[in-house]
Structure formats: structure tokens, C-alpha cells
């Protein structure tokens, strides 16, 4: 391996700007004073050499080469005042970019050369460590206590089942009622006459239904006669005499 092959190893460069910076630094220490034209020449010569050795050259290097070739011709040819940006401006921008990259490269080198913790200076190897002991401060409101007690009392109170009073007339009740009323009735009487006078709403409906069933039962026993002119016409009851 000779030196040329090594310097042509493009893997060693981090892109065209990196390569340009390396070439520029070979020219001068102060990047402000470099010759952009000479730098362009060097870059193009470098790539030509790479290509003549049939090395693969990444696309971004070729793009930069094309741009530099353009810059070179613009710098050499008589200046066209119409053209903006001027080749001098382009050259200046390139120089500014190189300066900035160079500045950061040097800053990085100075940074990593500092006395670094864990490499040059060391923290205590076996610190005892600091501990935070947590204490809980418990929170509750008086309402929570009272409500909880209510909840427990409700839960543990003896459970009593009360069947609520329902407004119904049982069949037994209706049988007794209709039977006793018929004893004092001699003529035909509408079934409604046998209902309690004060019965209203659900209770009246229940009394009517039970009295109707009672009437059927009494008729079946042969104790009363029933009479109805037509469906849904008033129903008449009379004791069998």
C-alpha cells in the first residue's frame, strides 16, 4: 500500500465539505487567507485521480465537483456583471462554511481533551448514597367519616320486609259482600250497585272484577240469576227466590 492509495480513501472523509476543509488546511493555517481557486483545483485533481484509479466516488462528491468546476470557470472568465450571485460571493460563502466547520472541529477537539469525569478525574468510588425517607401524611375529611358510618349502619341494620298495602278487593271479600247485599235486594240490580260507594280508581276496578267473579260463582251455586241484554250491556243480579 503506498501513500496515494491511502489518501484516496474517500471513506476517510465525511463528505465533500470535510475533504475541502482538509485540502484548505493544507494550504494555510488561516482559512481567511486561502485561495479558493487553488482549493477548487486541488479538489478536482483529487477526484480525477480517484476516478483514474477506478475508485467509486460517491454522488455528493461528484455534485460538489461539478459545482466547483462551474465556480472555477466563473472565477476565471471575464466577469458578467448581470450574473448574481457573483462567483466571488459564491467563493466567499464556501470559505465561510469551511471556517465554521473548522471552528466546530477545533472546539470539539478542545472539548474532548478536557479533564473528563470518569476518564481524567473521578468521583467518589463508593459513595454511601443519600436516602429520602418517605412519610405519608394521611388525608380524610370529616364528611368521609360520617358518610362512611352512615354507609356501615345502613349496611348492617336489620333488614325488615314489609309488604306494602295494596288496594285490592279479594274474591273472598267480594263473595261475602255480594251475598250479604243480595239478601236485602229483591229486584234486579246492576252489579255496580254492589261496589263500595267510596271505591275509586284501582280499588274500584279490583272490586268490580272480584264482584263479577263472585257473581259467576254464586250463579254457578244456583243462588242468583244473571241478566245481560247484549255484550257490554249492564249486568243485572237478582237473588233466586
Amino acid at each position, binding site marked *: 500500500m503506498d501513500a496515494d492509495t491511502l489518501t484516496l480513501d474517500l471513506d476517510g472523509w465525511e463528505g465533500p465539505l470535510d475533504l475541502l476543509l482538509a485540502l484548505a488546511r493544507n494550504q494555510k493555517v488561516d482559512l481567511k487567507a486561502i485561495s479558493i481557486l487553488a482549493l477548487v483545483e486541488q479538489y478536482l485533481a483529487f477526484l480525477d485521480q480517484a476516478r483514474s484509479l477506478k475508485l467509486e466516488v460517491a454522488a455528493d462528491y461528484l455534485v460538489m465537483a461539478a459545482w466547483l468546476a462551474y465556480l472555477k470557470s466563473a472565477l476565471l472568465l471575464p466577469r458578467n456583471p448581470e450574473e448574481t450571485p457573483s462567483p466571488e460571493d459564491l467563493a466567499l460563502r464556501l470559505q465561510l462554511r469551511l471556517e465554521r466547520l473548522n471552528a466546530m472541529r477545533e472546539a470539539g477537539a478542545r472539548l474532548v481533551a478536557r479533564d473528563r469525569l470518569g476518564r481524567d478525574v*473521578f*468521583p*467518589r*468510588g*463508593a459513595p*454511601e*448514597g*443519600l*436516602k*429520602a*425517607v*418517605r*412519610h*405519608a*401524611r*394521611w*388525608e*380524610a*375529611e*370529616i364528611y*368521609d*367519616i*360520617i*358518610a*362512611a*358510618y*352512615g*354507609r*356501615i*349502619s*345502613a*349496611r*348492617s*341494620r336489620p333488614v325488615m320486609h314489609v309488604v306494602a298495602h295494596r288496594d285490592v278487593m279479594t274474591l273472598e271479600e267480594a263473595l261475602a259482600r255480594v251475598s250479604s247485599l243480595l239478601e236485602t235486594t229483591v229486584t234486579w240490580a246492576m252489579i255496580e250497585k254492589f261496589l263500595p260507594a267510596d271505591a275509586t280508581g284501582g280499588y274500584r276496578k279490583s272490586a268490580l272484577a272480584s264482584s263479577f267473579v263472585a257473581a259467576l260463582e254464586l250463579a254457578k251455586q244456583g243462588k242468583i240469576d244473571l241478566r245481560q241484554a247484549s255484550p257490554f250491556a249492564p249486568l243485572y243480579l237478582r237473588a233466586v227466590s
Partner: protein
Amino acid sequence: MTPADSIERAVEAVLFAAEAPLTAQDIRLHVGTAADVEGALATLVARYAGRGVELVERGGRWHFQTAADLAHLLRRDREETRKLSRAGIETLAIIAYHEPVSRAEIEAIRGVQVAKGTLDVLLEAGWIRPAGRREVPGRPLIYATTAGFLSHFGLASRRDLPGLDDLRAAGLLDPVDLAFENAVEKSDEDD
């Protein structure tokens, strides 16, 4: 700086950075075999005596450690506010209304077992205290509320706790499902 000083500094740094106590021989591996490590150690012991950090020897090995009298500084207390669990609140309520009560009595009233942790939390909060033993078989511990309980909940005395009648009037004694129905009916009426 004299050479003695420089050995002392070196020993100091080596011991400080070491991850485990070192023998004089271990130290010599770092600072040089010719160095008067023992002399440097003696000087350092004297230099650190009475400071917040001390150089000590244990079984032939040397290390720095924080002064024993300052150990309490290495831990600090951090307070966290936490809400009492439902079991905690219920247990506290039963103790407040029935004190003094034993754990078995609390369980009988709650209808659920009381975890030991629940009582511990209430004890830690300073709201209940053991109040002797019930003179029944097994002599169970009985619990009562504390002055801290009264002041935390803004009560002048336990008599300030609303009675069962008050709770009933406030609807707090209704079984949950009934209370729910009432609430629903009410909102129906509101419509």
C-alpha cells in the same frame, strides 16, 4: 509542593476514587512502590479528623467514610399527602362512633375483615391509639380515637359527631340502592 505532600495527595485521590477499601499494598500499586504510603495515611487520618469525612482503617483496609455523627443528614424525610382508603375511613368511623372497640368488634360492625395494615395506617396517622384490652377471653386490644383525631377533623369532642338520627335525616342511613332510587325519582320530578 514537597514530595511528601504529593504522595499524600496521591493516596487521598486513590482512596477517594476506590470502589472498595484498599490495603496499603493496593495503594502502593497506584502511587509507586517506593512511596511512604503508611506515612501519608497517618497524615491524612490526622488531617481529616473531626471533619465531615474521616479516613478509617478496618482490618488492614482503608477507606473514607462520612463521620458517624452526621449519618442522620444522609437521609432526609419527605412528606407525601395520601388519601385514606375506604377501608381506612370505615374503620376510623367505627372506632370514632363505638370507641373503645376491638378489631373483632370492628369486623362485626363492618361485616368485612379489617386488614392489619388498615389499623397501622390509622395508628401512623395518629388518629387512633390502643386503649387497653377488653377483659374477655383472648383479652383483645381495644382502640380509641386521639386528640389528634379531634383536631384533624375539627371536632371539639366526640359528642360533636352527628348521631344516627342526624345521619338518617341527612339520608346517610339509606341503603345505597334506595338512596339511588330516591335520587332518580327526584330527578324525574325535576323534569
